[in-house]
C-alpha cells in the first residue's frame, strides 16, 4: 500500500531562520521522486518535514500543510509517532545503534510494533531485509556482532535494511548511496526500483545519473545566496528536467558534467 504526498505552501524554519520557503509539490504514490540541488539549499531539511523529523530539533518548526493521502501531517491531533511509523527514513550519515547487534539493528523497528515476532519469522525478515540492502552475504556470519564494527558503507546499508524491514508506506532517503561503492549502489537502486512497486519513494541525491536512472520525477531546489531560504525551482518528469528544463538555473545545474 502506498500513499501520495501533497505539500502546500510549506515554510520551514530553524528558530527564526527561514531555511526553506513556499514549497508546493505533489508526489505520486508508487513512484520515485528525486530531490536535487546544491549543498545547503534545504533538501535534507525539506525531506525531514515529510515525516515530522524536522521538529525534533530544538526550535525547529514548519508552516503550511503536508497531506498524506489528503490528511494533514501537521493537523491537530496527529501523533508524529504514527506519522513516522508510516513514513520511514534513511539518513545521510549512517546511524546504526552501536549497542545492538546487526540482527537487532535490523529488527529494531519491527520489534516496536510486533514484540512477539517468532524466531523464524524474525530470521526470515532479517535475511530478506539485509539481502534487499545487499549486505546479507557480508554479515550473515556475524549477525550477533555490534553494528558499529562495520565499514561506513556497510553501516549505511544496515540502516537501509533497518528502514525497509518495517515496510513503511513511504520511504525517504537522504543521499543513501553517498557512502556506497558502485556494487552496493546498484543493489540499492535495484531495491528502489522494487520498492516503487509498493511504496512511495523519495530520495535526495547529488548524483545526477542516479536521479536520472531511478526517479520518475525530479525536484530541483536552489538557494539565492547565504542566509536566503531555499526554494523549489522546478518539479517535473525526470526526463523533462534532464533534457528540457523550463528554468535556466535547472539547466545550468543538471548540465554540469558531474555526478
Amino acid at each position, binding site marked *: 500500500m502506498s500513499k501520495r504526498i501533497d505539500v502546500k505552501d510549506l515554510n520551514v524554519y530553524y528558530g527564526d531562520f527561514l531555511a526553506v520557503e513556499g514549497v508546493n509539490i505533489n508526489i505520486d504514490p508508487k513512484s520515485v521522486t528525486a530531490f536535487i540541488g546544491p549543498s545547503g539549499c534545504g533538501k535534507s531539511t525539506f525531506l525531514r518535514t515529510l515525516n515530522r523529523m524536522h*521538529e525534533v530539533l530544538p526550535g525547529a*518548526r514548519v508552516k503550511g500543510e503536508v497531506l498524506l493521502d489528503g490528511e494533514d501531517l501537521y493537523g*491537530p*491531533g496527529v501523533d508524529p*509517532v*504514527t506519522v513516522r511509523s*508510516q513514513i520511514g527514513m534513511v539518513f545521510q550519515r549512517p546511524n546504526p545503534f552501536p549497542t545492538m547487534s546487526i540482527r537487532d539493528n535490523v529488527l529494531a523497528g519491527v520489534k516496536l510494533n510486533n514484540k512477539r515476532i517468532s524466531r523464524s519469522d524474525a530470521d526470515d525478515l532479517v535475511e530478506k531485509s539485509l539481502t534487499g540492502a545487499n549486505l546479507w552475504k557480508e554479515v550473515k556470519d556475524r549477525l550477533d556482532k555490534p553494528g558499529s564494527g562495520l565499514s561506513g558503507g556497510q553501516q549505511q546499508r544496515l540502516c537501509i535494511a533497518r528502514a525497509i524491514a518495517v515496510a513503511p508506506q513511504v520511504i525517504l532517503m537522504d543521499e543513501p548511496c553517498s557512502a556506497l561503492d558502485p556494487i552496493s549502489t546498484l543493489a540499492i537502486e535495484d531495491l528502489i526500483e522494487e520498492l516503487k512497486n509498493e511504496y512511495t519513494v523519495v530520495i535526495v541525491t547529488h548524483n545526477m545519473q542516479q536521479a536520472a536512472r531511478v526517479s520518475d520525477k525530479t525536484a530541483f531546489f536552489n538557494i539565492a545566496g547565504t542566509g536566503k531560504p531555499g526554494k523549489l525551482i522546478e518539479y517535473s518528469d525526470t526526463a523533462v528536467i534532464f533534457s528540457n528544463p523550463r528554468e535556466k538555473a535547472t539547466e545550468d545545474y543538471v548540465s554540469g558534467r558531474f555526478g
Partner: protein
Amino acid sequence: MTTTTPPAPAPVKRSTLTKNQLPGWAMWAVLAGSLILGAALSSLIGFHIATWALFSALIYVAAGYFVTLSVEGARKAKDRFATNLVYAAFIVALLPLVSVIVTVLAKGIPGLTPHLLYYSMNGMTGTVDNETVANGTPVIGGVYHGIVGTLLITTWATIISVPIGLLTAVYLVEYSKGGTLARAITFFVDVMTGIPSIVAGLFAAAFFGLVFGPGTRTGFVAAVALSVLMIPVVVRSTEEMLKIVPNELREASYALGVRKWRTILKVVVPTAISGIASGVTLAIARVIGETAPLLVTAGFVNSINWNVFGGWMATLPTFIYRQLMNPTSPTNTDPSAQRAWAAALILIIFVMLLNLVARLIARIFAPKSGR
C-alpha cells in the same frame, strides 16, 4: 519536540493518522477524575493534603495508562505511563527540596543580618545570649570566622583534588590501556567513594600528626581530608564524561598533527566540560557541608583565622553543628539555633553561586548546539 495537539474537535472523517487518538482534553478529564477520586479515597482514612496528592497521583498514573491503553494501544500507553512517571519523579524530588529550603529559609532569614556576616563569635558567652533573650535585643555574634574557614579550606581542597582528579581521569580514559595500574586505580577510587567522612578526617589527622608532631590541626589538614573525599567524585564523574566524547573528534585532531596532550586539553576536555564542571561542583558541594572530618582536623574556634597553615579554624558546617549540639547558652538555645540556620542558609547560597560559576564555565566552552 512539540508543536501540536491543542484541544481539537473530534475528527470528522476517519483518519489513519488521527484514529485511535485520544482528544486533547482527555488527559485533563482523567486528571480531574483522579483528583476527585483521590479526595474521596483520602477522606476515607482521614483527609490530608498529602494523602490526597498521593492518591490522586497514583490514580492519575494508573488511569492514564489504562485509558491510553484502551484507545491508543499498548505502546502509547507505555509512553504515557513512562512520561507520567518521569514527571512524577520530578515532582517527588522537588518535595524534599522545597521542604528543606522552606525550613532553612524560615529559620535562617531572621538571623541573616549584616552583623552575622561581619562578626565572629570571639568572646561570646552564654551570658550574652541570656541577656539577649531576657532583653529581647537582636542576637549578636556571627559567622565571619566560619565563612573565612569554609572558603579557605574548600578552596584548598579544590586546588588539591581537582587537578589530581582530572589528571587521573585523563590517565584512565586516554592513556591507560586497561592495564594493571589502571585497574588498581579504578579499584581504589571505587573503595574511596564509600569511605566514611570521619575516617578520612582521622587519616589526615594521623598522617599530619606523624609528620608534624601530634595534634597538628590546621585548615590545610582539613583540606587534605576533604580532598580524600572529593577525589573519587571528581575522578569518576570526569571519567564518565571523557568516555562519551566521540572518537572521531580525537581522530580529527590527530590527523591535523596535533599531539595527544593538546588534543586532550583542547578538544576532548572542552567537549566534555559541561559534565566535568557539574562533577566538580558536585564534589565541592559534597565536601563543603562536611562536619565530622573537620572537627578532628581543623579543630574549632570562635575567632577569625586567615592562615590555613597555622592555627585552628572554624567552618560553616562545624559552626552549625556546634551551635545546634552545644548551644552557646544551654539554657537559652534560640540565639544559637538562629545563628545555625542562618549559617546553613549562607552555605546553601555559596553552593548556589558555585553552581552558577560552573554553568558559566560550561556555557563558554561547551559544544555549540546544532545538528
